[in-house]
């Protein structure tokens, strides 16, 4: 599974970073980006889906 944050849509709500810090981090402005080149380590798939389901800007996409 892979995740990707569309930086043109992210407005820094930080829901993904709060819910899945293993998969996302934030920069100095508070905007999010994916860790591990977007590769979701085994066992963290539900966390990735949770992050997607809580992004108010629909900025995160997932590839299964």
């Amino acid at each position, binding site marked *: 599974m892979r995740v990707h944050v569309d930086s043109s849509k992210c407005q820094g709500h*930080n829901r993904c*970073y709060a819910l899945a810090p293993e998969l996302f981090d934030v920069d100095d*402005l508070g905007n999010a980006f994916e860790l591990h080149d977007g590769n979701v380590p085994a066992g963290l798939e539900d966390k990735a889906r949770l992050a997607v389901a809580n*992004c*108010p800007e629909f900025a995160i996409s997932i590839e299964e």
Partner: protein
Amino acid sequence: MTDTVYGPVTDWATDFDHGAPEYNANIYKIWEDLKAAGCPIAHTERYGGTWLPLTNEMVHEIAYDTEHFTSRSVVVGQLKPSEVPDALPAPIGGAPPITSDPPFHQEARRILLPAFAPKKIDPLRDEIRQMCHDLIDNMGDAELIDAAEQYAQHIPVMIIASMAGLPKEDGDIFRSWVHVILAGIGESREEREPVFLALNEYLEKAIEDHIENPRDDLISFLLEAEIMGNKLSREHVAGTIILLMVAGIDTTWSGIGNSIWHLATNPVDRRRLVENPEMLPMAIEEFLRAYAPVTMARLVKQDYEFHGVQMKEEDWVLLPFPAANRDEAKFENPDQVIIDREENRHAAFGLGIHRCLGSNLARLEMNVAVEVFLERFPDFELNTSEEMVWSTGQVRGPRQLPIRIKARK
């Protein structure tokens, strides 16, 4: 209940008044009735013409559409910006960057973002916790308390004052100014004018003092900051500090109060959170969704047809994020508060380029304030022998929240 200068509301679909006390006190019923009557967008001639769209789709659309809607003034008032003689012009507006439009908006926002990013805000947790414990210690062993007046209202004002670089002891006066700006929209202009003058005078002095004695706080930071090679004007610095007060105080006070009100009236949820404190962050998101405190506003740039209604240039358009959060087209059982709701794309902090700059701080304050309240008062209920009072205007939350403490630690 007192009316605004416009008098009593005759019909909520065609003559609503969001500044009247009965609006916030009955908000969910009013929206439900409007939608049931087939009115997804209400209108009023009050405040010079104002629209109230109620669906998630409409609120989304307006929040992202900076071409047809301007943020030049985000609090509906009796005067339009063009009627205020010394109003700062677009694209800056009176309280940048919330009142700014692109492309200036992005520059004014970028300088502030680092101060409110999660890694800058998270370390404030211990300080906020201590503040919350001190407020509860001050209550002594009283059985009856007011959680809005003795607790919720103090937390954000102390944090904002300390970040901005203003004396914490001035908290009461900040709150009184913010009250006039936000809650007094329907009061006479003669009553409101002296408050704006006092606020400007206070900030001028504070800025003067920071120029002479620079220190490590936001006012000094803003005085040194540059946008495209130019220092910010004093009006810009003062406007941004007004923004921090207006956006940072009543809003978070409301968010904390709404959460405590819910727990005082829903013992099952309260018990679940006392027994499972690790559920709190998710519960706070649900309180933010169901009781989102903030309704924003925009102005129509030019005559514009929107979902079948004819909006006129400089009409006000309210952006009721709390209504968007209760739209059944987007949320399952939207009127039920489900504290472990897993999918929660709520818009309590707005959407698009004006996402609440202080959302990380607000979330931290709400989480810590409710966590400490539940730790210290594991059992409490609404004290129905005293009056519960809701705020008026675009920020909704309890201003009197009488609570009976039934267990304390």
